[in-house]
């Protein structure tokens, strides 16, 4: 099937972004409303496409649109074409839906910023790039969107770039993402070299006859790309600093959508990972490490946004892990991605609402008892909290429980380790989220008398309420009758692979998970009954390490940055002394010789005559010697 409406999904926000930037200050008064309407229009197109898709039969649902022939070299053809199938539509609805809510929220949140129009232009640009990422029908089209969201992320993290630390944070995110992008470009090159095509269909068709080594290399490179974009180990360090951006950006880009692009990439490339168990194992390892890594960082952060960022990292670790478990996991990963998109975006907006009321204070040790003054924020945040820790029947329960279940079912020792890791992760998640809740909303007030926390305006709490409803309902919605899994099955699990042998009954896994959650909550509640305003210094070495993000920056600095600096310093010295030195030496020799030779040119005719005589004599002497 083809459709002619797909292009609007990208063209509308892209046009709006360019328009708002080119209009300049003239658009300051209405730019934010324009951008929000555009975003809502994109959501409308997405919903109508979804309706149309839903009414078609299962194998007729994917639609394509050919835009133009992009690269045409000999037999190598790349078209700029869009593909909207059951997987992309999930993302389209999430991106445009949550995106629109966050546009609305930002109208109020950014109302005091004189650059609000520019902010909205960037947001629209992000929507366009992210939609291109999920709608491209080839890896090359995806790559364009992939770079686009990277740029949007950079621009928005550094939106307040008058603060040097924020500008540095933006740069850090950009550089870390470049490392991942190298992986994606290598993956595209491998795909072209192996299959002669970079479209999803072309690669899928070539996979069956491909060598396992090629598939493993391809999978590993895609994983590297996913690790960069999704802040997975070992490229995770940028996400915490990315919180320098305005909070709506953290909610949209660094929680709900962009950072989940890695999960999209892996699930979209399911045919590659199905062909290589080594690549799947790598994915699982990365996901498992990151989910614990992020969770541990989350336990020690006092900055509310950084705690949420660590939580995001951890939750994406869950998704990556699920997508590494093969056909049974892809749909579950997407389910967790969607529910996470709702509750994490909701919580970030809640955090933004608290900051809005507290004069941009982010230190949770300065909060306390905010639940009383900001009841709506408290309620919506609380629903998101219940969703993320996985209390039934909230959204996170369904998706995370499924992940724990299929992790246990992975089989053998691998299953035990993965299941144990996810279970431990669930307990730590419950601990740090409870800690965050208790420190922010409960207890006694620890803020200055100068601060006057107040409930945020309706434009801010309305999106929070919608997202909170999403965090309550989506899990049930996606899980009733396995609706999401069946919806995605034609794309992700065409052969209907069933989960392997069950290690434990689902009810046992759920009980275990719930037990872990209760343990985590109980521990946090007892531990954070009183919260000192200053962070205690006499803490264990583990806490200190966790406060420093498990030494990720120290590691990067000693292992990567310093040797890099030494290398560049060495290269500069080599260039200066060896290359430039040689050039300078040649110059010195020539100029020294010419200084000497210049003395001959003294302007006296007689000395020239003498030189001629000497020359003639020398010539004759030479001839005489030669003929002798």
């Amino acid at each position, binding site marked *: 099937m083809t459709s002619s409406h797909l292009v609007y999904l990208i063209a509308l926000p892209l046009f709006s972004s360019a328009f708002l930037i080119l209009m300049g200050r003239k658009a300051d008064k209405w730019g934010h409303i324009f951008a929000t309407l555009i975003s809502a229009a994109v959501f409308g197109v997405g919903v109508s496409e979804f309706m149309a898709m839903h009414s078609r039969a299962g194998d007729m649902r994917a639609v394509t649109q050919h835009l133009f022939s992009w690269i045409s070299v000999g037999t190598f053809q790349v078209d700029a074409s869009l593909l909207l199938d059951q997987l992309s539509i999930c993302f389209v609805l999430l991106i445009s839906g949550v995106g629109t809510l966050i546009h609305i929220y930002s109208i109020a949140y950014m109302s005091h910023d004189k650059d609000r129009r520019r902010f909205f232009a960037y947001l629209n640009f992000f929507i366009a790039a992210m939609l291109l990422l999920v709608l491209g029908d080839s890896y090359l089209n995806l790559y364009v969107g992939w770079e686009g969201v990277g740029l949007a992320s950079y621009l928005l993290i550094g939106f307040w770039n008058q603060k040097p630390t924020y500008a540095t944070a933006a740069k850090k995110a950009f550089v870390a993402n470049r490392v991942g992008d190298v992986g994606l470009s290598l993956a595209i090159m491998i795909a072209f070299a192996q299959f002669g095509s970079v479209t999803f269909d072309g690669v899928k068709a070539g996979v069956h006859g491909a060598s396992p080594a090629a598939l493993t290399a391809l999978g590993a490179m895609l994983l590297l790309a996913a690790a960069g974009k999704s802040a997975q180990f070992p490229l995770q360090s940028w996400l915490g600093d990315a919180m320098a951006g305005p909070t709506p950006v953290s909610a949209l880009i660094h929680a709900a959508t962009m950072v989940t692009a890695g999960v999209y990439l892996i699930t979209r490339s399911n045919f590659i990972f199905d062909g290589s168990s080594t690549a799947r194992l790598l994915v699982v390892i990365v996901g498992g490490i990151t989910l614990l890594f992020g969770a541990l960082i989350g336990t020690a952060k006092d900055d509310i946004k950084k705690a949420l960022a660590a939580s995001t990292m951890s939750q994406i670790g869950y998704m990556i892990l699920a997508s590494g478990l093969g056909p049974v996991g892809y749909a579950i990963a997407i389910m967790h991605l969607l529910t996470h998109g709702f509750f994490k975006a909701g919580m970030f907006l809640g955090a933004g609402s608290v900051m809005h009321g507290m004069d941009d204070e982010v230190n949770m040790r300065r909060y306390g008892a905010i639940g009383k003054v900001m009841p709506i924020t408290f309620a919506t945040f609380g629903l998101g909290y219940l969703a993320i820790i996985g209390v039934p029947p909230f959204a996170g329960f369904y998706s995370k429980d499924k992940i724990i279940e299929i992790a246990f079912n992975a089989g053998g020792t691998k299953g035990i380790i993965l299941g144990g890791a996810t279970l431990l992760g669930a307990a730590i998640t419950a601990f740090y989220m409870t800690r965050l809740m208790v420190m922010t909303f409960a207890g006694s007030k620890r803020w200055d008398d100068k601060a006057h926390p107040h409930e945020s305006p309706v434009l801010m709490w309305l999106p929070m309420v919608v997202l909170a409803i999403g965090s309550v309902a989506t899990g049930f919605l996606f899980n009733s009758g396995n609706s999401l899994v069946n919806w995605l099955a034609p794309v992700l699990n065409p052969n209907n692979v069933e989960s392997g042998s069950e290690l434990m009954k689902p009810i046992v896994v759920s009980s275990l998970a719930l037990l872990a959650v209760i343990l985590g909550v109980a521990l946090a509640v007892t531990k954070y009954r009183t919260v000192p305003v200053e962070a205690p210094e006499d803490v264990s070495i583990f806490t200190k390490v966790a406060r420093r993000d498990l030494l990720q920056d120290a590691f990067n600095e000693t292992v990567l940055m310093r040797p890099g600096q030494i290398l560049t310093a060495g290269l500069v010295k080599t260039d200066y002394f060896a290359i430039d030195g040689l050039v300078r030496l040649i110059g010195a020799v020539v100029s020294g010789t010419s200084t000497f030779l210049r003395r001959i040119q*003294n302007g006296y005719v007689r000395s020239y*005559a003498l030189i001629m*005589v000497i020359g003639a004599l020398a010539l004759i002497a030479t001839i005489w010697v030669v003929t002798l």
Partner: protein
Amino acid sequence: MDISNYLYLSAILFTIGAIGVVVRRNAIVVFMCVELMLNAANLAFVTFSRINGNLDGQVASFFTMVVAACEVVVGLAIIVTMYRSRRSASVDDASLLKR
């Protein structure tokens, strides 16, 4: 008389001319020394013509004389102009090209 003596004479005349060009400052004298060298060459040509028994050398010496006559015209004109402009016929004073 041994014919090679003419060649020795030619060599001596040439050497005197060359030394004169190098050591004398007066442009007229330098000029005369150049003429001396040319004539030394002419003498050598004529002598070789005699030794070889043909007229090639004699013809070459005529050419030399013609060229030398032209050179005298131009050269003397330059020397006179130089003397007029700077009241000196010293070749050492004419070192403007360097500066």
